[in-house]
């Protein structure tokens, strides 16, 4: 028989609702009466019930499995990676320090330095952070001129990029959006750092000029046991390439671009603006 034909006054959909026990009692009884003289239909509906039972048998054991750690930590996560440590300290700094953001003009370096020195940002030693910035600059120089394959996963697949890099870095990795500063996300890639994986996000402006954000979570290891009161925000220059970098807890960040220092500072301010807005919605 054709299961899509309504059988007498009983619709195919109703037979499924009957199988799924979703009919009112009266209608259920009517269908049972109707089925009495239709053994083929009884057999068909019984096979549907067995399908349901079989599917439950097959997949219910998964409910008893131990949930992988990475899923538990993702379920618990509240704040994106770039805000994990910074947000609380920065919010406090903004209030207690009385420093206001200027979204239009960006921030002078002095303001950023003032903020950083009054937050809970982890201090870093100049030597190792400079090495970190150096690696970021090299990575920028190697990949940003690449016309054919500047990134491994492009921005059209941002979900997959985020999922992949988060998995490899062992921490949630969501690229900030920098359109307000004229940069659109092009994609990202995984790179070898000094001791483990490093994530590189690549952006470009309307003229195709590149900007990279380099994120490492190995800085804490480098710095372990070391206390240094140096300011957390740093700026360095290699030829025309400028690198703005800082360390926050286990993460080191470096923003590299062949642009002027003020633009780069504004991008850094924009990243911070995004993470403070995340913090304020919590």
């Amino acid at each position: 028989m054709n299961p899509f034909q309504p059988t007498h006054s009983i619709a195919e959909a109703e037979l499924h609702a009957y199988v799924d026990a979703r009919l009112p009692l009266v209608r259920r009884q009517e269908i049972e009466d109707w089925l009495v003289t239709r053994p083929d239909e009884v057999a068909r509906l019984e096979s549907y019930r067995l399908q349901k039972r079989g599917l439950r048998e097959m997949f219910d054991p998964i409910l008893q499995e131990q949930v992988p750690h990475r899923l538990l930590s993702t379920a618990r996560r509240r704040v994106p990676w770039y805000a994990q440590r910074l947000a609380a300290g920065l919010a406090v700094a903004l209030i207690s320090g009385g420093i206001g953001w200027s979204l239009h003009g960006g921030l002078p370096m002095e303001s950023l330095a003032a903020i950083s020195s009054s937050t809970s940002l982890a201090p870093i030693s100049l030597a190792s952070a400079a090495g970190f910035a150096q690696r970021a600059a090299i990575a920028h120089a190697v990949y940003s001129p690449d016309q054919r394959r500047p990134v491994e996963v492009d921005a059209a697949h941002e979900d997959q990029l985020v999922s992949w890099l988060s998995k490899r870095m062992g921490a949630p990795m969501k690229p900030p959006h920098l359109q307000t500063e004229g940069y659109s996300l092009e994609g990202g890639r995984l790179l070898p750092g000094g001791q483990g994986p490093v994530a590189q996000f690549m952006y470009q402006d309307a003229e195709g000029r590149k900007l990279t954000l380099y994120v490492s979570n190995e800085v804490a290891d480098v710095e372990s046991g070391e206390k240094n009161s140096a300011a957390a925000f740093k700026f360095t220059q290699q030829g025309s390439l400028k690198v703005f970098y800082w360390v926050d807890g286990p993460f080191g960040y470096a923003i590299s671009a062949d642009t002027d220092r003020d633009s780069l500072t504004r991008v850094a301010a924009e990243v911070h603006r995004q993470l403070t807005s995340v913090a304020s919605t919590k």
Partner: protein
Amino acid sequence: MLDEQQLLTWVPRLRRYARALAYNRDDADDLVQDTLERAWAKAGLWQGVANMRNWLLMIMHNLHVDRHRRPGVQTVDMDDETPEVPVAPTQGDRLAVRDLESALNMLPIEQKEVLLLVALEDMAYAEIAHALSIPIGTVMSRLSRGRERLRALMEGSEITQRLKVVK
């Protein structure tokens, strides 16, 4: 107000559905992870979510459809840390169940989704329509076609007999 603890309680259910949708454990758990991340990204909406499970399943469905349409980037293949793990329980007298699995995997994804949401989550047809963003009539026709196709795939063999033993 929904909170983190509630999100955690749904993880096993999300894993079950994801495993039934995807073909292996890694892909399924990646799908769950993406779903959780998306849920956090939209945490501002939680207050308006009437049914957390349905909302999460809707997110998962959208992500899954998205991946299905664009199989170009296989992030799992890039990760060499996670070995392949058998999907279904293989012990004892589960032969009929495994046959059901291979039949299930021969269904079009649209039919498979509806069948699974009915069987595993016991969702109302209207809830499924909402989660999959399709009319309820489409839910019913996919359910009907899916069940009939599954029956046809398994009919005539001894599998039907074995399934009765499972009962």
